[in-house]
């Protein structure tokens, strides 16, 4: 299967710190992959590079088989086709939930106001936020904000959606509403790459789990593999810590 989004030998260095070290992975249409690992293991940086929000120091990124940086494509056009959900929802604070979702539809995809409004409502319905369409971010709970963040990303009909620890900043009781939305998306066949510590979510929906530590992929395999007999001691210990 050809990957929609793929990286080969991706390395990202900040000053003297090697955040991501020679990572290769790909994600195919309809797949859900979960990246997990201790904080500071490079998950976020990897995702931001794949989302074309940061330029890798070394290595290549392929979108639908084309080397993004070598082919000098318009990054903005590609970014519009890759959805991104942030840990901190990063909603635009001067716009309502609806306005947040409409912004990209109008000003990136060039839809008319009515068309953008219709699509934005659809996306808000998917995340069960249509009743809150006219509320400003500050009037919503963290979980609700994150669901709007997801709606904002999926409304653009991206070919792949990257999730950067979308529940990490939320209280326990708010996590589930976000996870439920993500599970729903996975079941609908959305192509997703999710960095998260929610291993039970991973077990239910992931086609593949990827364990990262210190900027490298230590081990990858099916959820069953990780939950029954991980190859490495590091992965086993980490899973034990998270699952308690």
């Amino acid at each position, binding site marked *: 299967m050809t990957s929609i989004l793929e990286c080969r030998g991706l390395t990202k260095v900040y000053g003297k710190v090697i955040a991501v070290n020679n990572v290769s992975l790909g994600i195919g249409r309809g797949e859900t992959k979960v990246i997990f690992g201790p904080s500071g293991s490079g998950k976020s940086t990897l995702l931001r590079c794949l989302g074309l929000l940061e330029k890798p120091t070394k290595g290549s990124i392929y979108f639908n088989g084309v080397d993004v940086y070598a082919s000098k494509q318009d990054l903005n056009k*590609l970014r519009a086709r890759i959805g991104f959900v942030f840990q901190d929802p*990063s909603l*635009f*604070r*001067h716009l309502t939930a609806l306005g947040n979702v409409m*912004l990209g539809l109008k*000003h*990136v995809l060039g839809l008319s106001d009515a068309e953008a409004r219709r699509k934005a409502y659809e996306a808000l319905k998917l995340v069960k936020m249509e009743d809150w369409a006219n509320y400003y971010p500050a009037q919503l709970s963290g979980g609700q904000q994150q669901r709007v963040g997801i709606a904002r990303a999926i409304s*653009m009909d991206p070919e792949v959606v990257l999730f950067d620890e979308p529940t990490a900043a939320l209280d326990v009781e708010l996590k589930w509403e976000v996870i439920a939305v993500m599970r729903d998306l996975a079941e609908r066949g959305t192509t997703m790459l999710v960095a998260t510590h929610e291993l039970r979510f991973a077990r239910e929906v992931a086609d593949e789990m990827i364990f990262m530590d210190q900027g490298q992929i230590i081990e990858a395999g099916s959820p069953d593999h990780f939950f029954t007999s991980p190859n490495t001691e590091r992965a086993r210990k980490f899973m034990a810590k998270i699952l308690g």
Partner: protein
Amino acid sequence: MLFLLNYSTFIISGFLITVEVTLIGVGLGLILGILAALGDIFGGRIVKIIVNVYVEFFRGSPLIVQLFIFYFTIPMITGVSMDVMVTAILTLALNSGAYQKGYLKGAMEAVFKDQLMAALSLGLPMWKIFLYVVIPQALRIVIPAWSNELASMGKSTTALIVIGVREFLNTGISITAQTFRPLETYAFITITYFIWIYSMLKALDILYNKVKIPGLEPII
């Protein structure tokens, strides 16, 4: 104070000049402030140095000296002399821009820090991010600071008497010279400034409450 009625057209024209230079000065200052803030955020080393020298000069020296420099020194050096009103408005705009740069930069940086990645991830080009995400928020955040700036510019325009602009305070000086009644004249002038500037502050308060959005609290 009834004698002032004899000078009413004179007084009104002086007052209108004061209002005019204040509003144009702050308006142009807003544009200069945005440009200077952008230069300081995104510019290279040279641009940053230029912006900071500009800001420190205009914030650090009295408006009177700035007016003298623009009215006398610069025409002397360049050989180009400008109309006194143009000089006045230009100097006020540069002065106001230096002050406005400070809080516009803070507001814009706050928005960038918070939401730049999110805006980029949607595929918005930089200029659209600036237009649809940064400016609408930054301008709301700075309205309270901006109303201070408008008040302070309104008061500062009195400095224009040193280059002979016939603004509101200057009409008071002329009337005093003719009537020898400084107490009533200056009291009238001072109270009129108060009424005008205070109403401007109130008006901006109302505007602020109209465009206020929950969660977009002002800095300063």
